[in-house]
């Protein structure tokens, strides 16, 4: 009914507060009946009696876009109906309660998008060169391997 729509794959690194609304707009499409979204936030936690007060993120920026491109290619190969993919990711300090990552995927029908986002968040954490450090109220800190 409409001309073929360009597929959008957007990854943005940002030192500032992330806007859910912007991520939703980036994936919106009149041909999609479903948007699946994931928000990862810094949560209150106790680690060996120390209270987590925030996370510190760093990235190897030159490789972020190329790894994201591979991730999107993988997603589209598995779920060809996936329309747009958008990820906003924080860098630097992210205090408790704040979002460090927002990912959204739009698709004509919901099941494809829901399966795709589950896989995509797992792959994001495994392959995109971004690392996080937990910072505690005791002033010390610890780099995290991907366990979540």
């Amino acid at each position, binding site marked *: 009914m409409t001309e073929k729509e360009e597929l959008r794959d957007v990854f943005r690194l940002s030192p500032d507060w992330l806007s859910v609304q912007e991520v939703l707009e980036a994936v919106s499409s009149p041909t999609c009946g479903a948007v699946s979204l994931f928000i990862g936030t810094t949560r209150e936690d106790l680690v060996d009696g120390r209270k987590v007060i925030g996370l510190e993120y760093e990235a190897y920026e030159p490789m972020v876009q190329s790894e994201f491109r591979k991730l999107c290619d993988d997603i589209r190969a598995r779920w060809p109906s996936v329309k747009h993919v958008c990820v906003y990711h924080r860098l630097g300090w992210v205090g408790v309660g704040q979002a460090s990552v927002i990912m959204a995927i739009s698709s004509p029908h919901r099941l494809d998008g829901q399966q795709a986002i589950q896989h995509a968040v797992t792959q994001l954490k495994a392959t995109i060169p971004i690392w996080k450090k937990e910072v505690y109220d005791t002033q010390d800190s610890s*780099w995290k391997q991907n366990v979540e």
Partner: protein
Amino acid sequence: FFYSEEVCVLYFAKSAELTGVKEEHVVAVPTPITSQDLWRFLLQRHPRYHDNVGQVVLAVHQQYVSIGDQLVTLGDGNEVVVAPLSGG
């Protein structure tokens, strides 16, 4: 083989913490070189740096290279990334 003129080595996350260095410029790195030999070469520069090989990955030319027999070619000014296997 040859020696590359100058390579920029970037350490991230726990790797930076363990070496105490985030970025260093290294001259006369043999090339081509297996990723394992490159890793040993870098380890020698940081005697206090002990890390579990299974938890570390290199990246060259913006491609991950696991530590093993794979040959990498380094040109002048190339970046080598040393980082924990997985992110956050």
